[in-house]
């Protein structure tokens, strides 16, 4: 039975109480986002362990305020105790396939906050373009951006994104995907990519990063030194997906290297060789890392605190992958069933909603290694003209 709401004294204050001090820090994987909200006659109290919980509670509070047909704002007496099930709730934007103006990114961060997302996974560069303006290697964007004047993210843009996100309790995890997905790096970093061969001669086409030359590792060290400073989050996403071996196989120097190192014909071992060195470099810079699942699938030696990002989807194969990754003791992030760029007709939100991340075969300790997931909006068919209605 509906009870006529009793109109009490108008509420004038929402008291926000945060127990742990610290407004100037950055959110992290371990941040406590819990909060309690209590709305009763004469008092409204939002209490949280940290400011991040307070942000979540403010969002909830704003959703509770209603407006009646006369335009009067009201709120029901309410008790809420809330905290997230998973600590890593992310959204991936791809600014390489199509450049996204700063405004679009900031708008996305706003909507993420409405939905309590707390990680912005910035897939910032890839094959088609390199919009990230590097201070160490300015040529990368000068040569690699779609338009070096207009389609770039300056240091100031990047700072804006990071701060705008921080104010909403959102971590920014940058992804500089290597050794594949790096064609746009080539023009600004001669000698970085592997020259592909046709027979005995270079074909003029390039492949993944060249893993056998020292200059590669010098470059990678310098670049990630900069990236580690620019992006304050503890984690960097290092990519490692979809490395096409055909170019490496065609290159005589690489073939010679394979023989020298006793790697046989198994180019996954060469990929591992590169990735292991990359992981060491990034670790020595004091960062943790996330990698796409191939890095795990190809038996790269990983540090135990690596996070594996599960993305391949074919008839629920991702459930096996989640089981395998967690059984091996690594933490896992799930994206496979949440590739939102793969649009289809009708209410496809239902399929995304029905996904139960922990429904794979495994013991509780394994399930505890699933730290969350990410909805991915790859940019092949997405730019600012359709990003928002496609994502939300």
């Amino acid at each position, binding site marked *: 039975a509906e009870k006529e709401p009793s109109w009490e004294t108008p509420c004038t204050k929402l008291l926000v109480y945060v127990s742990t001090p610290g407004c100037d820090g950055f959110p992290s994987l371990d941040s406590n986002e819990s909060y309690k909200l209590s709305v009763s006659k004469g008092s409204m109290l939002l209490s949280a362990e940290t400011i991040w919980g307070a942000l979540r509670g403010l969002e909830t509070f704003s959703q509770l305020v209603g407006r009646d047909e006369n335009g009067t704002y009201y709120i029901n007496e309410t008790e809420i105790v809330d905290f997230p099930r998973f600590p890593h709730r992310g959204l991936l934007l791809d600014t390489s396939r199509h450049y996204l*103006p700063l405004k679009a990114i900031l708008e996305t961060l706003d909507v993420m906050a409405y939905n309590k997302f707390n990680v912005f996974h910035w897939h910032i560069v890839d094959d088609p373009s390199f919009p990230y303006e590097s201070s160490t290697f300015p040529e990368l964007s000068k040569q690699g951006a779609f338009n070096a004047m207009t389609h770039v993210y300056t240091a100031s843009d990047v700072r804006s994104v990071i701060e705008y996100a921080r104010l909403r309790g959102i971590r920014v995890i940058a992804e500089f995907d290597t050794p594949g997905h790096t064609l746009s790096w080539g023009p600004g970093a001669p000698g970085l990519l592997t020259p592909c061969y046709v027979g005995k001669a270079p074909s003029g086409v390039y492949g993944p990063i060249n893993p056998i030359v020292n200059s590669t590792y010098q470059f990678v060290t310098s670049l990630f030194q900069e990236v580690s400073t620019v992006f304050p989050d503890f984690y960097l996403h290092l990519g490692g997906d979809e490395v096409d071996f055909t170019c490496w196989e065609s290159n005589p120097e690489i073939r010679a290297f394979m023989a020298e190192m006793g790697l046989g014909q198994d180019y996954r071992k060469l990929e591992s060789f590169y990735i292991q060195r990359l992981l060491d470099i990034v670790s020595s810079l004091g960062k943790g890392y996330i990698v796409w699942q191939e890095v795990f699938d190809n038996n790269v030696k990983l540090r135990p605190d690596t996070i594996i990002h599960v993305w391949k989807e074919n008839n629920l194969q991702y459930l096996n992958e989640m089981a395998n990754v967690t059984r091996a003791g690594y933490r896992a992030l799930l994206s496979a069933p949440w590739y939102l760029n793969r649009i*289809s007709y009708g209410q496809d939100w239902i399929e995304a909603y029905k996904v139960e991340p922990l429904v794979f075969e495994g013991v509780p300790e394994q399930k505890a290694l699933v730290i969350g997931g990410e909805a991915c909006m790859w940019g092949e068919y997405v730019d600012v003209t359709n990003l*928002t209605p496609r994502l939300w």
Partner: protein
Amino acid sequence: SWPTMGRAMGLAGLLLGLVVVPAVLVSTNLRHGAPRTEAEPEPSGWELAADAVPEDSLWPLPQWVRTYPRQLQLAPSRFQLVHGAASSAGPSCGLLQDAFRRYYEYIFGHSRRRTWGRRPLAARAEPELFQLQVVIEAGDPGCDRHPQLASSEAYHLTVTEPVAILKAAEVWGALRGLETFSQLVHEDDYGSFLVNESEINDFPRFAHRGVLLDTSRHYLPLKSILTNLDAMAFNKFNVLHWHIVDDQSFPYQSIYFPELSDKGAYSSNLIYTPTDVRLVIEYARLRGIRVIPEFDTPGHTQSWGKGQKDLLTPCYNGGQPTGSFGPVNPVWNTTYDFMTKFFKEISSVFPDEFIHLGGDEVDFSCWKSNPEVKEFMKKQGFGIDYAKLESYYVQNILDIVSSYNKGQMVWQEVFDHKAQLKPDTVVQVWMANNYARELSRVTGAGFTAVLSAPWYLDYISYGQDWKKYYSVEPLNFPGSEEQKKLLIGGEACLWGEFVDATNLTPRLWPRASAVGERLWSSSNVTNLQDAYKRLTNHRCRML
């Protein structure tokens, strides 16, 4: 029988032009004077191929195009779109005056470029193009008329110094030609406006090239509809099929029956007033676009029942009315009294020769449950064939609408259920399953057809689905030459179940562009790679 020589000519032009013509990118951000900071997908440096040819900017591809390497320069401060001396249209032709201003802005942008330039004239290398003269050849240009199915949209464009000439029988052809001309003008790396010498002879392959918008499942604000009309004009579409009301809402504000929208619209501000409707019709007219309204009955009418008591059939269960309603009640005289008055209004509000009467997806279960209807069926000797009842209803409506001198369009069920149609009734084929066979049947029975079945653009899917729409060949159905002539065109449909103003434009465009070219250009324009090149340029320009 002009073959599409564009590409062959383009190749020759390329070989000649490699010496003179720099690699140019079609002007992409001037369409609406978009500020340079706006994102636009530019091909990266290595895609700026030296094999860019002028035709690369054309969409839809004209029937016959010849371009030359020689380029002419346009000065925004001096270039004019004018009426030619021999034209039957002049400054009193509001439609062309409006078009001249609009296309000037499309070509040069809304910028300050109108001020006198500061670089000395002597620096110019190319000869200047001073004017585009528009010459309407028919005695009656059609300036104040509304476009019709039989209107001429053919045009002949000659771009050469010092003056380009656009000839067309009627103003509608001039509008098409202006769009094409605007697609030929491009900017070079230095910001100069250039156009290659060219000659184009063009006309549409099909006369009915439409887009269906659904303003019942979701209300579309006027602005969305008008923006969409602009986009349609960029693609030479010439029919807006306005599916204005349906089950969910009745936004059309009727003069005779104001309760229909008072009670049937989503809310009192989500309506189309008579002024709104006039605005849409005129905005469309100025772009050579017909507005064919659809008032779909007897099904799809739930929202009508809110404002019009005793119009819909009361459904029964076990001898008692359930309180819910079905399709329009075909047995009451009051139904036909209402429809007579309603369609009188519609016939006068909408100037097009045709009205779409719907007739699709009629669910018979409510009729079957209603005792009066059952009684009527017996009396009429329809047995248990409710399709006959539907046809009985439809025939009455066709008669009513005919009496107002309007032609009728109907969905295919009306034909399939064997209603007696008027000889010039247009049947819209929409069911995807074996639509080629349906086209054979409809045209075989002597009726004109419009094809929509393969072009339900609301059915989105991942990736480049434009290719699927582009690859449709409408005349691929078994039939004689005479039959094929009865297929007058097609419509891209964007049903509104999952569409509103927040996603209409990116969902409809540029996918509908594929349909636009299929309906305008010659049947042998089918190369997907070439289309991709041109469509990429066209899409950026539309932004």
